[in-house]
């Protein structure tokens, strides 16, 4: 595959590959494609887990089957306690996972930016 350099309005930027002495290329531990995948999954994970966290907090019945409920219960009170506890735990778990995805977003975004500078991709 031959790489065609488009020269429209770029003002004659150097098109030599990065030399090994530039610090960015040694700090990039992900390739271009991997960092792009991570970036996209992090965006999606952030949005979806935030939404799910809020929905768990609002105790939507749609998520009733996703709760960590253990075994047969003696009475209704115990069951309801577990349900409320389950919703709360899951809400917090989703929000923590969302925060983890924010970190992943940052890292993969930084890696993607580093890789961007040394390739001619769009």
């Amino acid at each position: 595959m031959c790489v065609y350099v488009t020269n429209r309005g770029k003002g004659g930027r150097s098109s030599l590959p990065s030399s090994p002495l530039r610090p960015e290329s040694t700090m990039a531990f992900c390739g271009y494609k991997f960092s792009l995948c991570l970036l996209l999954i992090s965006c999606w994970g952030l949005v979806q887990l935030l939404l799910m966290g809020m929905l768990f907090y609002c105790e939507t019945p749609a998520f009733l089957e996703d709760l960590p409920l253990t075994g047969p219960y003696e009475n209704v009170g115990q069951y309801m306690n577990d349900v409320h506890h389950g919703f709360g735990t899951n809400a917090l778990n989703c929000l923590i996972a969302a925060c983890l995805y924010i970190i992943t977003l940052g890292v993969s975004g930084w890696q993607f930016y580093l890789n961007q500078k040394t390739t001619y991709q769009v």
Partner: protein
Amino acid sequence: MGSIFRSEEMTLCQLFLSSEAAYNCVSELGEIGLVQFRDLNPDVNAFQRKFVHEVRRCDEMERKLRYLETEMKKDNVPILDNGENPEAPQPREMIDLEATFEKLENEMKEVNSNAETLKKNSLELMELKHVLLTTQLFFDEHEVQSTMNIEQRDSEPGTSITQNLLPAEEGKGPVQLGFVAGVTLRERMPMFERMLWRVCRGNVFVRRADIQQPLEDPITGEEVFKTVFIIFFQGEQLKTKVKKICEGCRATMYPCPEAGAERKEMAQGVKGRLDDLSTVLSQTTDHRRRVLAAAAKHLRTWFIKVRKIKAIYHTLNMLNLDVTNKCLIAECWIPTSDLGVIRDALRKGTERSGSSVEPILNRMQTQLKPPTFHRTNKFTSGFQNLIDAYGVATYREVNPALYTTTTFPFLFAVMFGDAGHGVLMLAFAAWMVIREKALIAAKMSGEIWNIFFGGRYIILLMSCFSIYTGIIYNDVFSKSFNIFGSAWHINSNATVENLEHWEELTLDPANREEYSGKPYPFGFDPMWQIAVNKIAFQNSYKMKISIIIGVIHMIFGVVVSLYNHTFFRNYISLVFEFIPQMIFLIGMFGWLCIMVFIKWIMYGAGPEFGEERSSFCAPSVLITFINMVLLKKEKEDPTTPCKVFMFEGQYILQLVLLVLCIICVPLMLFPKPLILKSLHNSKKRHHEQQAIAQNGELGGEATTSGHGEEEEEFEFSEVFIEQAIHTIEFVLGSVSHTASYLRLWALSLAHAQLSEVLWNMVMKIGLSQSSYTGSIMLYLIFAAWAALTISILVLMEGLSAFLHTLRLHWVEFQSKFYKGEGYAFTPLTFKHIVSGDEDDA
């Protein structure tokens, strides 16, 4: 009138071009890309055509350019692409181009051969350097030993290594050991040693040392490992033998002086020469890079120019030379609405060539079938490609691509039906569409990417429709949204004692406490997502709407055939094909759909419907339909208040419909061939009468009528068989195609279930953690769930639904009206040359 509804009207034109203007006119016509030239010399060999020399010269130039391109790729010289579109140069400029390319090619070849020689020399010098080094080591070692021996034996210092260690025997002269040093590949060394041992019967002594650094082979450019060897032997015969073996095993020998001082001198000389050589070599590579970089700026422009010249000469080869040899005659197909544009292009070409003779464009009447030309833009071209893949439309037949723009995404969405996956697809499609210009300019290779990118508008529409059907099915990653408030409520039976014994709680829709009577305004009620009998309920709904959508689609197809019949003035088909087909389809399967609607409206659960119209009494539509065809009249069951039929007179009505449909079958089969036969006979009689009336007059009339006779050959048996096939295809096909639309139900069920399984088996694990460390688990599991969602549910299911939608269009819809027997319009155009496609004209 040009539109996507029908293919364009085409005219066959005769074009008279003066010889000077021909080249420029064809160049201008190629730029606008609206003219398809007919080959007027089809039986002429490629080597006997008029412009074969020019084409050959163009091929030569292209070969040289490709050679330059490979050299540039080898050196990673970037080829400039500034998107400009150079015009085809004049014929006389071809010579300049040829000279430039010749010069460049020769320069490159010279530089390459020089570089090769230099590399060979440098390799030899390096090997010699290593030989000297290694032999130096051998002799040093020996001298250390021999100095030790010397002290012991008290002989003179500085003995040569080759001097006989044993005292000279009486009668025999002093025998000197000779040696030969050289270099060979490491892999060949064992074979070489064994050969020496066997041939010289063990009378030679070999010492070897590997060269640590790999050396570059000048021809292949690979790095190889080599070994230095030094062979000691005694006597002339052994010397010749050793030399021959070295040559045979392709080991290079180097002259190595015995004395240490000479060796040192030689080593220094070699070092000096090596330095000189490396300087010259680097200068050569620099020069080569400079030449390539200078050429790279123009390479793309040259390629485009040469390809354009070649295309023009190929076209000129198709033209005829007229009697006076002063002008060229061409026959071409052009869209009638573009006559003005073409005349302008011809005028421009004549002006550029400086000729005073205006080209003449004559319209011709012809019986030939014109090509099919659909004017498409970037949005419709995707859909048009889908239709053309099945078959190019017959000339001026209704173009199904127009309707496909809506029905295709809709049918896809009915099968895909998940708003979450739809959003993912929308993100991808929107990125492709918004960054369209940049992505086209990036010229990414990869067939799969090009397929996705070419269908970006299709994917965009499919995703939008999928979000809509996802909202209707109330399915977002297998979870439902409750936006308006569910119509179902838990009843008073839901006490703790009851629930301890029951597995499930049943909610009866007839009870207004449990079902409010006001259905969920838009889409499925969210309660169904957690209902155990969700699938049974959804099946009934999805199967019925699949049939309804299918019957509507097919009736629509038959209606489109009406447009075709009226346009081609095929009134026989209109009366004896369209009308029976419509009656059959509506009478049978339209009636099925109407029964579904009647049942939906008239029957229900709740106090508003009486006992007769309760959900218990709703008759099965399918059984009613089967009984209709089998003419079964079931007896009423007195124990229940239910009636067999939905309304009074249904039996009579169904009987009438059945009889009508049965009559339609012979109506489709017999009248048309018989009428065609009688028409043909009357025409023949008419022609015969005309020929008798104009007896003795030879000329145009007779020939045209004779010509007409040939075309109107009429085999009654063929026509009848064709009509029979057509009838059977339609009648049997109507049943099978209606059932085939059930795939809309099947695929949407499969998609929903896959989605649910993925959530329950993967995501639920992450959500069922009872501690806060479950967040790490959730973090990882989400990534796995996301990857599986994309790969299985979006890509695989999307591809599957796409394929089934395509089949529904190609077979079930298009078989009702589409002939698809045309050939595509392939004008002379330079667009693919400029965009850099590797199409060889």
